[in-house]
């Protein structure tokens, strides 16, 4: 039995709590808001601060529930205990349980917007379930009004059209069912919403393999290829290939 601290994005909340409860190890979980996804340059100092604050608390390792996340984890430094990160680009690979499976899904339909229960429940917008797409209808209407006031109606229409244009190129809404609990009405709502955007809807069964391996200490095994262990003093670096990460000695 080991004692670990897991610092993770809140999109993993329910699976992580569930896995921690049944892990042979003692795991403390610290969730970080998912909106940092949009701002990798803020993610890095925020995560480093959390890592630093947890020094000398008796943890044997700090486990990161993050991937490369738009370079948001690059440069993070392990202090007095090892830092462990799954070798994935983002949460989707993590929830699919396999980087290869993600690559295949991506190849098949690059224009996929992925959803999970935690993603919806832990929205920064006053806890409301989000409509499909990153901009909820109410927020979009509000944004339009602001643009009209600032730049006139003609420009406002152009801006809304331009800033939302990616939605027309997306083709699929994928709901990742992690099997942790019955998704309630969320799946049905997504299905209805995806019709509105003319996106195909697909429910895909996730796989907790990577998250479970992270908490259970699979990374300590000799042939653990899904994780990188950054020893104390070293930091996280990028490889630009399937390994995603490498370690830079401090």
């Amino acid at each position, binding site marked *: 039995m080991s004692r670990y601290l897991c610092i993770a994005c809140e999109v993993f909340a329910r699976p992580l709590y569930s896995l921690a409860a049944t892990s042979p190890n003692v795991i403390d979980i610290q969730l970080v808001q998912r909106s940092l996804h949009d701002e*990798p340059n803020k993610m890095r100092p925020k995560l480093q601060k959390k890592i630093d604050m947890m020094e000398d608390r008796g943890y044997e390792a700090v486990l990161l529930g993050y991937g*490369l996340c*738009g*370079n948001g984890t690059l440069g993070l430094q392990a202090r007095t205990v090892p830092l462990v990160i799954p070798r994935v*680009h*983002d949460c989707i690979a993590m929830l699919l349980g396999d980087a290869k499976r*993600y*690559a295949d899904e*991506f*190849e098949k339909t*690059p*224009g996929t917007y992925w959803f999970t229960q935690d993603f919806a429940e832990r929205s920064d917008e006053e806890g409301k379930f989000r409509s499909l797409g990153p901009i909820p209808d109410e927020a979009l209407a509000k944004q339009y009004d602001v*643009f009209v006031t*600032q*730049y006139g109606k*003609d*420009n406002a229409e*152009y*801006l809304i059209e*331009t*800033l939302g*244009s*990616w939605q027309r*190129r*997306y083709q699929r809404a994928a709901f990742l069912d992690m099997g942790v609990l019955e998704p309630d009405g969320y799946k049905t709502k997504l299905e209805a919403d995806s019709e509105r955007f003319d996106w195909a809807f697909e429910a895909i069964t996730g796989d907790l393999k990577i998250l479970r391996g992270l908490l259970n200490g699979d990374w300590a095994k000799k042939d653990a290829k899904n994780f990188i262990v950054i020893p104390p003093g070293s930091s996280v670096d990028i490889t*630009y*290939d399937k390994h995603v990460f490498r370690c830079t000695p401090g």
Partner: protein
Amino acid sequence: MDKIVKEIYDAVVNGNASGVKTKVQAALDAGVNIESLLNEGMIAPMKEVGELFETGEYFVPEMLIAARAMQAGMTLIRPVLLAQDIKPAGKVVIGTVKGDLHDIGKNLVSMMLEGAGFEMIDLGTDVSPEKFLEAIQAHQPDIVGISALLTTTMTNMDATLRYFEEHKVRDQVKVIIGGAPVTQAYANTIGADGYAPDANQAAALARQLMAA
């Protein structure tokens, strides 16, 4: 500067597309010098827009509407430039890398380069190495611009450059790259000729590469 050119300048900076269109037409009808119209009425205000963006006074929406206003003017100016055989600052083929469907950043770069006097050939999103190669052969550009928003697609930039090498066109063009996850370090790793962190600096980079 002509009074009407100054008005066009202001209309571009303020993102007033219909105003630019009306005034450019009036300037053309009045026989205003076409190079002055291009340089003072289109390129100069876009340079100011770029600087306002750099200093944090302008954000993406202001840049987009200014570029749209500039484009409204360019639609009228371009045929005249062509008729008078006035050459662009350079020719650029631009596109989002294979597998990536995002283009707001790429479009901004494209508009800022157009605003800097470049002729733009925009291939859109999800552009395969093959499509880039075809465009190089068809248009003989000076510069190829490649963008990516995702770390998962960014590495296709490397594959694209290797494809150019295989087909012996790499030396014919300067390749510039950009997009949220892209860094100077990555540009160095794959041997791109340049990297810019934003649309304004991309325009400066393109000018610099043309002068080299």
